[in-house]
């Protein structure tokens, strides 16, 4: 008897989110009703994953390898110039501005400075921005509202919104017409709880899920299965609290690993494998630090998609 592969069809659809200011370039994520890369199933995958390059609000810490930022060596002292230069690489879809210097464990720089940098970076690039605070919940509660005001109405993605600060940061994001990246520490139940709580005052269709993404070799399995689960719950079970698109923010994590820092070729592959894995698990946005790993994963993704067209 001839084997006939089963064809699945889901009724749940991932929320569609568009990022980017008017007059600039925009990206749209979500909208899929098939599980990640299940092009053989019945349903759609209307929007390709978005590859974002991470830049910093300060010159990179010295312990990071030189090869990582080589193309930007002359502009790294100025985040706005750095952002402007990114546009020369047309395969980059978005920029993640990581406000590392605001971290109390880094330079503890003030909210006003972060807001000023965000404003200048927004002026310098037409690409959509993903602006991330340090992840320190108390500091972010001061930094992110100031940043939101500086990029008012620009439809950027702002995060991480955490359970400790979701009210103050969530309200700032809402008031300034931006999108929230809701972050919980690799736990499906906490992830849902934060979305439920945000949902009391914040529109669910303006939330992106950040489940925290470790690097290859450092616990990526947890996030892999968590992302799979989010997509299954959203598309098959139709749980509204898990129907948001997801961001895999591994840029910082990958380059903490000694394997990535050891040499450039290995580093590119380490980041590319992390990215490709989480893309396969269902991530809609992937943040990278190395230009070449973006190029590599994007090419692999595009050649896969071509087969199914």
């Amino acid at each position, binding site marked *: 008897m001839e084997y006939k592969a089963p064809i699945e069809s889901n009724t749940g659809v991932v929320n569609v989110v568009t990022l980017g200011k008017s007059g600039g370039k925009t990206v749209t994520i979500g909208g899929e009703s098939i599980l990640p890369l299940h092009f053989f199933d019945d349903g759609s995958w209307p929007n390709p994953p978005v590859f974002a390059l991470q830049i910093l609000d300060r010159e990179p810490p010295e312990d990071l390898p030189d090869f990582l930022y080589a193309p930007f060596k002359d502009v790294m002292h100025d985040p706005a110039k750095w952002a402007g230069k990114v546009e020369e690489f047309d395969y980059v879809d978005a920029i993640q501005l990581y406000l590392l210097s605001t971290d109390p464990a880094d330079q503890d720089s003030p909210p006003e400075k972060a807001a000023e940098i965000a404003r200048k970076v927004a002026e310098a690039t037409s690409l959509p921005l993903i602006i991330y605070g340090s992840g320190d919940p108390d500091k972010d509660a001061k930094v992110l509202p100031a940043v939101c005001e500086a990029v008012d109405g620009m439809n950027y993605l702002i995060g991480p919104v955490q359970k400790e600060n979701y009210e103050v940061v969530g309200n700032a994001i809402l008031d300034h017409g931006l999108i929230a990246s809701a972050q919980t520490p690799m*736990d*499906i*139940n906490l992830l849902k709880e934060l979305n439920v709580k945000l949902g009391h005052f914040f529109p669910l269709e303006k939330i992106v899920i950040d489940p925290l993404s470790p690097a290859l070799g450092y616990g990526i399995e947890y996030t892999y299965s968590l992302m799979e689960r989010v997509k299954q*719950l959203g598309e098959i*079970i139709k749980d509204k*609290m898990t129907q948001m698109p997801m961001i895999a923010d591994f840029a910082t994590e990958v380059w903490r690993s000694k394997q990535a820092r050891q040499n450039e070729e290995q580093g590119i592959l380490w980041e590319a494998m992390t990215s490709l894995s989480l893309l396969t698990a269902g991530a809609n946005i992937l943040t990278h630090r190395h230009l070449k790993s973006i190029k590599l994963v994007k090419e692999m993704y595009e050649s896969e998609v071509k087969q199914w067209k």
Partner: protein
Amino acid sequence: MIIIGENIHVIAGVVNQAIKARDSKPIQDLAKGQVQAGADYLDLNLGPLTKNPEETIQWVINTVQQVTDLPLSLDTLNPVAMEAGLPLCKKRPLINSASGKKEQKEGLLPLAQKYNCDVIISVINDRGMPPDVEMKTESIMDTVAYANELGIANEDIWVDPIILPVSTAGEGQGFAKASLEFIKIIAEVLPGIKSTVGLSNISNGAPNELRPLLNRTYLVMLQRYGLYSAIADPLDKEFMSLIKGEVPDVVNLIYKVMDGEEIDLSSLPQKELDYVKTAKVLTGEVLYSDAWLE
């Protein structure tokens, strides 16, 4: 449904202090309160009893038996203490609990035979906690066969699937389903067998004020599948009236959720709505979060 009152528990500070000071009153108060509330057994959870095991368990048993004739469930993993306590029990006691682990199987099961009492056997074995219903069943069949060979009849064995917190990330809801399924099939697998659960563990880790709701709902579900007894808090009045069948509307709603029936949520009063939402979490229909009622 046999309720084994759980409140005399050495982890509770008041119990621990009373035992240390040999102060009868707090323990007798806890015993009397549970008797009045309708408990069928009293659990005496004494932990590992590393110091003076024999004298301590005997003192607690005597202290409790001064105020009640209810049968006791002796809850310690220390076989020396267990053996010192069993002969003192006026009513046929319950050993809580043995398992498939070598030391417990060999240390505690012979006591059940020797003193002709009932015994709880959990599904845990030397390989750990069996995760799914097949492995739980396989493990309990081995240990029950071992007990049968010692001369303990199925009717004297209360099997325990081990309830784990539903809030455990990613897995808790699967555990809750596996234990339900175990209770559903166990009477067919082991004819004559009784069953029990440590109920309150289902809500461990959930917000404190919402724990009783999880406990109650889960027990109604287990009761439907033939659960014989539960170690639980008899002082929760709503819980006791639910299992006695005094609130049939709520029970029927929980059954409807179990059967996958559509329920019109908009027409339900708040209390009923909360039970429906809780049942949906416990069946795995809706993903658990601490905010499951919102």
